[in-house]
């Protein structure tokens, strides 16, 4: 029997005996499957209709589900601007990851390893950006950039650098959080083993500590990438007509006559999300994502 639910808890003898059709176990199992099945239908429905509509003809200029006929023309109709915007969003998210890892990994090591009394307060400080609604962060950075521009001439609003700084701000907590989680669980006798074998502390950090905490870094990096790539509210305040991320483009496009070619781009993003998940599971393991989620 391939049914996995609670398979072991019943004595084997009971399994073999011919049982009535509606035992409590069977009813419970059926209910559980209906519930879980319903959940997945609900969860995936919006994504599924986008993919379906991206391959379908529109009705009266609007995408519908189910589509009346299948076509590939929307993929051919993707405007260059969509792809450049998508590319810039990916580049921005990648830059956010690089900066967040460069700042977050040392921060996490420092947080766990320093013997300061105020460490709890510092940990809370690094978490703070997550607690602030993104809209508030967006407005606040916009105003901060105005003031900085008045004082120094450096432009933050409507520039990629400005977006980068703001996205680093909202994404850094995820890197710090997941790396702190792995460093705390990290077995320091691994470092002692490296030291006694002749490795200097820096060499130990490079050859032992960093590789050992890598899963935490990867999962933090993944969350940082998604935070930047998925963000709408912050980018909405800080983007300009030249500098805008893909979510902003999509948001603005949804207000007006909707171009079905955007569904094709969305389909590419959905596919990329699933591919990214598969790669992560293969290379790092899904557990790294779960652990840092807590």
């Amino acid at each position, binding site marked *: 029997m391939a049914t996995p639910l609670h398979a072991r808890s019943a004595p084997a003898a009971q399994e073999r005996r011919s049982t009535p059709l509606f035992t409590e176990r069977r009813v419970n199992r059926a209910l559980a499957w209906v519930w879980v099945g319903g959940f997945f239908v609900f969860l995936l429905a919006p994504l599924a209709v986008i993919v379906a509509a991206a391959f379908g003809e529109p009705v009266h200029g609007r995408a519908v589900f189910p589509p009346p006929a299948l076509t590939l023309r929307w993929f051919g109709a993707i405007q260059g601007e969509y792809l450049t915007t998508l590319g810039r969003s990916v580049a921005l998210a990648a830059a956010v990851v690089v900066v967040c890892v460069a700042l977050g990994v040392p921060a996490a090591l420092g947080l766990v390893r320093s013997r300061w009394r105020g460490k709890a307060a510092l940990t809370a400080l690094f978490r703070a950006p997550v607690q602030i609604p993104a809209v508030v962060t967006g407005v606040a950075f916009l105003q901060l950039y105005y003031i900085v521009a008045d004082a120094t001439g450096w432009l933050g609003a409507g520039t990629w650098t400005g977006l980068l700084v703001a996205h680093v701000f909202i994404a850094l907590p995820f890197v710090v959080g997941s790396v702190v989680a792995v460093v705390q669980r990290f*077995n320091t*006798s*691994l470092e*002692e*083993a*490296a*030291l*006694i*074998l*002749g*490795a*200097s*502390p820096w*060499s130990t950090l490079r*050859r*032992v500590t960093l*590789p*050992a905490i*890598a899963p935490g870094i990867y999962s933090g990096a993944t969350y940082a990438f998604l935070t930047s790539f998925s963000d709408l509210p912050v980018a909405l305040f800080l983007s300009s007509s030249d500098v805008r991320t893909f979510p902003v483009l999509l948001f603005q496009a949804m207000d007006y006559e909707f171009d079905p070619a955007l569904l094709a781009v969305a389909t590419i993003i959905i596919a990329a999300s699933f591919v990214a998940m598969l790669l992560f599971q293969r290379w790092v393991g899904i557990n790294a994502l779960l652990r840092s989620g807590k």
Partner: protein
Amino acid sequence: MAAVMLSGISKRYGDTAAVLPLDLSVRDGEFLTLLGPSGCGKTTTLRMIAGFVAPSTGHIAVAGDDITGLPPQRRNMGMVFQDYSLFPHLTIADNIAFALVERRVPAAQRAQRVKELLELIRLPHIAGRFPSELSGGQQQRVALARALAHTPRVLLMDEPFGALDAKLRETMQEELRAIQTSLRITTIFVTHDQAEAMRMSDRIAVMNQGRIEQLDAPRTVYDLPRTRFVADFVGKINFVDATVVRRCGDGVEVDSLGLRFALAAANTAAAGDRVTLAIRPERLYLAPVDEVAPADALSIEGAIEHIAFLGNVMHTEVRATDGTRLLVESQPADWTVGARLRVRFRPTDASVLTEAA
């Protein structure tokens, strides 16, 4: 010259002393065990030798060089940890070669050395695997190979077999001892398991509350414990009150169990002092009341209070006529509770504890 010399080494954490000032000289090529219950300071002592813990006082010298201030990476030691601590992201070969890479040994030489070590631990086929793919015993062997790769001056081992099951532990103990003897590497081994210490060591330092209570060959520690703690920690033992009658040469004549006899004593007890004698249960013999004792044996009369049959041996509790309770370990025999008998022993099998009674 001593391979490792600790002089006046101690460690305090705030108000609590983990290790009181102690001296210890480990001989070249010796297998020395620090034995004691948890919290006795044995691991702290080992970690001071390794360089992970800075001693509060004292000096550590290896082959005459003072290394007290050296960081662990410059002490040229090898260490096997309780949880193996193999690097999970490196293959077995890379784990073993770790110290060689740090020492910039050329790749070809490294590979040769890894091969030698894998043969030494009799696991030549696992070079490409990762630690998570090995059993506990295999990981333990790899940890040993890794600790030996750079031919360290001293091998340190911190309860390395604690996580293994009893049977595997015995095999590993024998293998380790064989490897240690063949390489003649000075080894300092920490354990709380007295049988393990007995089986493997050239000498045992029994530690308690931050002090070394006795440092001797296993046999001496067992047969002639110097303190109540050592006597009690290393197997079962009987304690018997005695009064010193007079000193005679290296020993004392005592009055105990209603008998008067002479025995060796390392302490300075003087006539009239109350002392404690310790004697192992298997050094006591049960005999019928009317049997004639050999010339060198003493005997006292008593009655059996309790018998426990343990398979290969029998534990008999005897209450002597003067009220002292004695535990006797013997071959199983047909004694019954309540039977009157004589308990026989040789004065040379008893030791006088150095502490005052």
